[in-house]
């Protein structure tokens, strides 16, 4: 995993019954990334803040996005590498 100091990003999300929150695109460093697959979703707490992590992939790479439910903001935490 290649870590980035959390950078705020803009994310397009679909809210539904079964999938609840599903990121479908995000804009990072001026480039738009289209999410082709949401690999895994998990939650963690940091004090009172509940963070929801999304591992998402586009055609080329896999990324770790984080939604802070208290601050209501999205950040990108890193890109996954092989090992």
């Amino acid at each position, binding site marked *: 995993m290649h870590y980035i100091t959390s950078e705020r990003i803009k994310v397009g999300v679909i809210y539904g019954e079964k999938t609840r929150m599903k990121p479908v695109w995000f804009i990072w460093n001026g480039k738009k990334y289209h999410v082709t697959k949401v*690999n895994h979703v998990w939650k963690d*707490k940091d*004090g009172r803040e509940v963070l929801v992590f999304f591992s998402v992939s586009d055609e080329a790479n896999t990324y770790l996005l984080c939604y802070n439910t208290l601050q209501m903001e999205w950040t990108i935490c890193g890109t996954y590498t092989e*090992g």
Partner: protein
Amino acid sequence: MSGTYREKVIMHVDMDAFFASVEQRTNPALVGKPLVVCGAGKRTVVTTASYEARPHGIKSGMPLFEAKKRCPTLLCVEADIPKYIDASLRVLNILQEFTPDVEVYSIDEAFLDITGSLLLFRGAENIARIIKKSIKEQVGITCSIGIASNKLLAKLASDMEKPDGLKSIRDEEISSLLEGLPVEDMWGIGPRLAKYLNEMGVVTCGHLGRIPVHLLERRFGIIGRMLHNMARGVDDSPVVRFGTEPDAKSMGHSMTVQRDLKLRKEISWYLFLLSEMLGRRLRSGGYAGRTVVLTLRYTDFHTFSRRMTLKRHINTGPQIHETAERILDGIRLRDAVRLVGVSLANLARGAIQIPLFEGERRKIEVILAMDRVNDRYGDFTLSWGALMGSQMNRVVTPRWRPEDRL
């Protein structure tokens, strides 16, 4: 569906290579590759090996450097405990849809008493198939399930067809199954006891089950009868429903340090950190204890513990640290230290007395105020000056419970 069970039907659900499976789900580039999940730092061990890594002889507990020698293409991912806790809780939610009698044995294993659910869900095997499908769909990983009339046999069954297995042991199959089963394959018989039994000429559970119980009791004391029952597949232990487990008997933290500690003040700093971590966990569970245990490991892996029992219960970092320091004062160190551990035993809930003197009361108030700040903003947001910059690594002990999630 043929075959019978005795009065109860017990299920053991065991996640397959749990940590590694969750990491392969998170990062598709890791799928199908030999992978281990390990701790941070150079001197770490394998926590879990993926099924692709296991044919190389890589197992949990193996030092990472040895695992890499066995498999030069091995990939290593640092453990992400919150991710695994989240997955475990989601699995627990699925299991609780079938019965309230779910015992969380560890972060990746659970027992279910499904006796009362058989009619509703049309049989044990059907319940198992639905559980496997739900876990695969909702969590994205596989599990192996064993079904039998007690916990001992259910756990044996789940181990027989890993990964992604489903195995039932009917009552009429028990004797023939255990007759040839090596004693070391039985849950509860570790390598040392198995070696001892082998040296006695007891190689299989069939052999062990035929030894008269009074002879086993004479040789092994109180566990003699347990061994006799295990060898015959007898186990009356109930499934302890999650939330009704007995209180913890002890709690502790230990750490293998990045470089060997030669100076006493270096050991002291780690004792302070571990005492602070331990105090926080104790207070969040409402526990206090009277016996402080200090554990040290030298560079030659000689490990020893010393303990001190106090007159009153304690649960703050400074109190635990002070006692650990007193224990350390009585030890003449013969070598550098690679592991430091602190634990508190003789635990009780609600055992803290309000201190008599104001100075002591203020200290407690400060610590409780720090707890409130750290609960809100995250662990170690507010801490002692000597520990600033430290991080509290979340741990998953073999006896992890969902309520341990901080």
